[in-house]
């Protein structure tokens, strides 16, 4: 159901072009390399395409059904899907457990379990697979569409998911798959993690989670422990506490969120405290796949930026070790003559505003060769006249040569786009702030499998 060649959209309206089912039908029909069939019991034609009265009337096999009909009709539609041998369904429709119709939802689950039929939802946006297909009932021109890449997102909230896609796009993070699971009646986080573990396009798995069922959290951490891809979690609902807190010290000290957070940390699952951390962690872990111990070398063109970055490293549990005399002498030797006299080669290395591309390359190469340094943060201020747009691409070769991750900070302005892309297209993460760059390094230190 994640690689469909044929999709049926059930519940299209013959009269209302803005009906969610029509939005989904149109976008798949016009923009994706997938054969799509509209379904409505009344039959007829939609934009001169035949509308099938039932899913059973569709002449070819159907890999995925997108169901956007009223809640009370969904059970019958699901039966038709099962009978036809459809590969799976996304149930977009609301009006189930979230509106106190647990009964309707239970019926769907029973039916699907018995037939071993997978479905996502109900009450969800469903699947977004960049350049392949999506089931979001949001017009394509309204959403920000990240490029294909290696990060998969699973989200209980459709709204948060679409917003994360905006952030991913701004930050140049590519997406392998995004799934909004809504009421997660049948397919839940764990099922998708199993799928994504096997998915060759996915390197990093990111989740937005509101809560687990009884003991599902334990199953979640046990599952993730067996997976060789980094898992990042953003948890919502951090303040709710247990009710019998007053009678037991342990219960009062171990509130629901604290348990969640500490158990995830214990298992090496990366918890992002907010959206900003989420995007930073995803970007860094999609580029680099090996953990670091956390000794950071910093290169800057401004003393102040160097100090701010050192402070941020300390706050985030990273260290910025001093360089030995021999290492410093080696790096100084490699700089241009003009710079040798003025550059400060403590860590952070301050190349000053007079530095040019060659100096940055020389300093980063030298710093990457220092055995005690396992990651380099490069603070680039493109308004320095010596920096050219080629620097990003040149820098990316250093990682490939030395195998030490390089993280850049470049202010994200349209004007600097070419410099930024020089890094990003060559798989070097670029943060839009100093803190962002430090968070990217923190992700490499904290993740268990990278």
């Amino acid at each position, binding site marked *: 159901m994640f690689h469909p060649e044929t999709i049926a959209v059930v519940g299209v309206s013959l009269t209302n072009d803005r009906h969610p089912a029509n939005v989904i039908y149109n976008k798949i029909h016009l923009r994706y390399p997938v054969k799509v069939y509209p379904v409505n019991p009344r039959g007829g034609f939609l934009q001169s395409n035949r509308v099938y009265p039932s899913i059973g009337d569709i002449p070819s096999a159907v890999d995925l059904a997108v169901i956007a009909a009223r809640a009370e009709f969904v059970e019958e539609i699901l039966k038709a899907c099962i009978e036809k041998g459809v590969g799976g369904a996304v149930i977009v429709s609301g009006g189930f457990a979230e509106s106190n119709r647990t009964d309707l939802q239970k019926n769907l689950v029973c039916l699907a379990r018995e037939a071993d039929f997978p479905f996502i939802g109900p009450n969800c946006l469903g699947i977004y697979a960049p350049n392949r297909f999506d089931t979001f009932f949001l017009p394509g021109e309204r959403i920000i569409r990240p490029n294909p890449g290696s990060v998969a997102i699973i989200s209980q909230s459709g709204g948060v998911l679409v917003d994360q896609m905006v952030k991913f796009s701004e930050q140049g993070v590519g997406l392998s798959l995004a799934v909004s699971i809504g009421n997660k009646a049948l397919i839940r986080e764990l099922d998708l993690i199993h799928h994504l573990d096997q998915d060759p396009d996915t390197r990093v798995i990111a989740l937005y989670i509101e809560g687990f069922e009884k*003991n599902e959290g*334990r199953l979640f951490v046990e599952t993730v422990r067996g997976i060789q891809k980094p898992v990042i979690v953003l948890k919502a609902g951090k303040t709710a506490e247990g009710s019998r807190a007053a*009678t037991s*010290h*342990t*219960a009062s000290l171990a509130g629901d969120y604290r348990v969640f957070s500490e*158990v995830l940390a214990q298992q090496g699952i990366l918890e992002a405290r907010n959206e900003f951390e989420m995007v930073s962690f995803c970007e860094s872990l999609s580029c680099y796949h090996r953990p670091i111990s956390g000794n950071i070398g910093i290169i800057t063109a401004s003393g102040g930026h160097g100090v701010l970055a050192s402070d941020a490293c300390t706050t985030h549990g990273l260290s910025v070790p001093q360089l030995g005399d021999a290492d410093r002498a080696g790096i100084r030797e490699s700089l241009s003559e003009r710079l040798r006299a003025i550059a400060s080669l403590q860590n952070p290395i301050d190349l000053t505003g007079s530095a040019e591309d060659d100096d940055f390359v020389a300093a980063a190469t030298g710093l990457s060769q220092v055995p005690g340094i396992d990651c380099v943060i490069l603070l680039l201020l493109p308004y320095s006249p010596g920096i050219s747009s080629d620097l990003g691409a040149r820098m990316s070769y250093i990682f490939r040569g030395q195998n030490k991750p390089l993280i850049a900070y470049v202010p994200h302005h349209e004007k600097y786009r070419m410099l930024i892309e020089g890094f990003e297209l060559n798989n070097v993460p670029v943060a839009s702030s100093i803190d962002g760059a430090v968070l990217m390094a923190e992700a490499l230190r904290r993740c268990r499998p990278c």
Partner: protein
Amino acid sequence: MLNLKIEEILIQAQKSGWVMEPEAKRLLSMAGIPVPALKWIKTESGALQAARSIGYPVVAKVVSPEILHKSDIGGVVVGIDDDARLSEVYRRFSAMKGFAGILVEEIVTGMEMIVGAKIDYQFGPVVLVGIGGTGVEVYGDTALRMAPLNENDVSSMLSSLKGAALLKGHRGSQPVSISALIRLVMDFSALVMDLSDHIESIDLNPVKCTRDKCVVADARILLPKP
């Protein structure tokens, strides 16, 4: 793996919803967790005899299914030196609501730690270790992990505490036996895994630690609401 005697203690406690201290300690000691020498006595003369056999000074605590927080109402007296003082305490306790006897106990000293567990809705049994005593919730210096715990888990929990340096002996104070503490927490973790369907939370607070042993000075086991 729950043995019959432990099961019996839990069944007995169902009515009040929690296991009273003497029974909680009996349960712990069956699981190999060190508790002080103690006697649960229902007569004054028996209490005096118990104190003499344990050896003065002793601690006395009221036992009552209706009193969960003993020290809040003066139900704990430490440093009782002789028969006269113990008799006086016994008479006072016997007037307390739900009086079911007196716990006469050997005095244990040492650094105060907390070892606790709760059955979390999402993650099941979790174990907490930290700097204990009455200020435990004020300082909140505790580490928390999903059970069962192995030796490395416990060891890294202890070193993650802000007060980790206190365990090693700080400015002339005695260090505590880390190996005894790790042993206790691991035995506790195993017990909690066995009891996970029958309990809601357990507080061992304080656990008193010295350079050669760790002993549970107070214990409270809360059962799930039926």
